[in-house]
C-alpha cells in the first residue's frame, strides 16, 4: 500500500491525540494549581480573611 496513505492516517491520529494530550495536561495543571489555592486557604483561613 502507498506510503502516503499511512502518512495521512498517521498525521490525523498524531495531531488529534497530540491536541487531546495538550488539553488534558493543561487542564490537570490548572486543577492542581487551583486545588492548592483552596487547600492553602483552608489550612490558614485567618491569614486570608485578615489580608
Amino acid at each position, binding site marked *: 500500500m502507498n506510503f502516503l496513505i499511512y502518512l*495521512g492516517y498517521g498525521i490525523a491520529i498524531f495531531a488529534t491525540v497530540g491536541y487531546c494530550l495538550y488539553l488534558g495536561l493543561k487542564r490537570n495543571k490548572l486543577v492542581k494549581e487551583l486545588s492548592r489555592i483552596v487547600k492553602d486557604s483552608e489550612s490558614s483561613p485567618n491569614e486570608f480573611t485578615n489580608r
Partner: protein
Amino acid sequence: MTFHVTDGPVSNENSDFYRLDKINKALALAGRKMWRTLLGAVAVASALATTVLGLYVTPKDEHLGNSVRLLYVHPPVAWAALYLAFGLTTLCSILYLIPKTRSPFFDKIAGASAESGILFLSLTLITGSIWGHMTWGVWWTWDARLTLTAVLLVLYLGYLSVRKISGTDHSKAIRNSIAALIAAIDVPIVHFSVIWWNTLHQTASILTPNLQFKVPPSMGITMGIGFLSATFAWVWMVRVRYEISVLEEARESESLTTLIQNRRMERVG
C-alpha cells in the same frame, strides 16, 4: 484623576468567599469525569476501528485503488470542522448577541469549538492534499473548494486572534461573536462551491440527493464509524477546552484578587 484600588467600597467579587466559591465551582466542573471518560473511550475505540477497517479490511476501489482509504479520514474531519465545530461556534455567537440568551457560557463554548475546528480543518487540508497528490497528481491547486477552505482556515485563525484582544468580558464576547459571524459566511460558500463552480473537487460522493448510499456497505460502515469517531473526539475536545476556560477564569480572578489585596496591604503598611 488617579484611581486607587483601595478607593471605594470593597467589591463582593474580591471577597474570599466569592473567590473560593468561583474556584470550587470550576474544580467541581472539572471533577465530573464520567461523561468525559466515556466520550474519550468511545472516540478512541471508533478511531481504532476506522483505522483497522480503513487500512486492512475494506476493499480497494475499482478506479481509485488504495487512495480510496483516505476517504475514511478526509470527509469525517471535514464534517467535524465545517459543520460541527464552526456550526456550534456560529450558533453560540448568535445566542450571545441576542440579549435574551446572552451568557458567558456561549462565548466560552464558541471559542472552544473554533479551536477544535481549526485542528480538524487543518487535517482536512492535509489529508485532502495527500489525496490530491495521489489522484490528481498535484499537492495543491487553486481550485474553488480548496482555496475557499484555506481562506476559511485563515478566517478562523483570525477569530482566535481576535479572542486574545483585551477588554472587558462583555466587550470581548461581543467582538468575538461578530468576528465569528464574519468568518462563518465562508462556510456555506465552501459547501456549495462544488456546485456553483466547475471544480476539480468531486461533488457529494457518499449519499445521493435521496439519501441513498453511493458506496458499498463495507465502505459505508467504515465511513460511518469514521464520522462517529470525529464527532465524539470533537465533543470531548469542546468539553475539555470549556473546562480549561472556566479554570483559567477562576485562576485569573484569583490572581487579580491577590494583586488587589497586596496593594491594600501596601497602603495599610
